């Protein structure tokens, strides 16, 4: 299987999306969004992988000629994680407000244009 890691990333993302669509609890929805976003971490890291490559921390045994894995996608993954944390916290705060106002966190039980 040559593209195994790529399929894993898509699988994780689709699991998250399916979870969002079938969710009966807004907290569950937010967690599913995090799961879907985790798929992108796997994809980014898989794109930068190289067989035999080491971590891109230089000095000592690792010189400019040593094969390393791609640090660019690792930096992008770091950005991705930070944005994911920000989005998750913001959405959870919104869920708390919805729960207070409507006393329900099932998206199907919230009225139109309010969910």
């Amino acid at each position, binding site marked *: 299987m*040559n593209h195994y890691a790529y399929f894993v990333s*898509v699988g994780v993302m689709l699991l998250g999306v399916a979870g969002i669509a*079938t969710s009966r609890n807004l907290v569950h929805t937010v967690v599913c969004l995090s799961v879907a976003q985790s798929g992108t971490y796997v994809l980014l890291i898989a794109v*930068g992988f190289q067989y035999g490559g080491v971590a891109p921390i*230089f000095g000592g045994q690792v010189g400019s000629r040593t094969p390393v894995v791609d*640090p660019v996608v690792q930096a992008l993954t770091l950005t991705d994680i930070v944005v994911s944390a920000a989005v998750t916290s913001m959405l959870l705060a919104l869920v708390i407000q919805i729960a207070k106002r409507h006393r329900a966190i099932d998206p199907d039980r919230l009225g139109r244009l309010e969910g």
Partner: protein
Amino acid sequence: MTRRIRLIVLGVGIAAFSAAMLLAFTGMPRFGGDVHAYRDAAVAASYGHDTANAVSSINFDQRGFDTFGEETILFCAVVGVAALLRPVHRERRREVSDAGHVLESTGLLVYVLFPLTVVLAVNVVAHGAVTPGGGFQGGVILSTGIHLLYVGGRYSLLRKLRPLGWFQQGEALGVVLFGALGIAGAALGSALFANVIPQGQLSDFISAGTVPLFNVAVGMTVCSSVVVLLASFLDQALAIRAERGNGSGPDPRSGPEEGTAS
């Protein structure tokens, strides 16, 4: 939209998305191959500025402006959460006592781990340009260490050791520091977020020019952000209670108080 229609739409979407992805992946370079053009360019640039940790070099040197945007996103999210989680109508804040039972082993573990975590966090931030780690990771570790006190059952101790106003200002200060370092790059060097400080020797503690300074600024912001975020959520869970009864109109006692006022 009924549940059934939603599931059908979901199925069609997943099938189409999977097909598109399958098509895309078969056209991609081989997994684990040794052709990484961006990697080669980034490693060369990282060596050019004597930064041992290539990921830090990319985040704070080569694409510093992007990271500034990322930090601003985090900052805005925290401000949004703080605004959303203020006490609203018919809510009041109650005193939280330290009642409740905590296992002695948990308490001991917290006493052992708290200083260790704080030292580890400072270490991770300080060596961000030399070893794996950096401002983001160190900031999260530091805020986790602070919240170990809550795991040990000491909410009042947590509140004493965590003057929230300081963290709110620390967060803003971190963002300002980051921007100021970027502007300093423009003023003293060639471009915004340029690495203007002499870079020294690769993998020395003092090396990589501005990268360690950016790490400190980001560490400050991230730690303060997580502390403020968790303080808002803990406040909701522990301190804020709805008024009993269904009195109408705003309650004069429910105004913003210490903690969530921003």
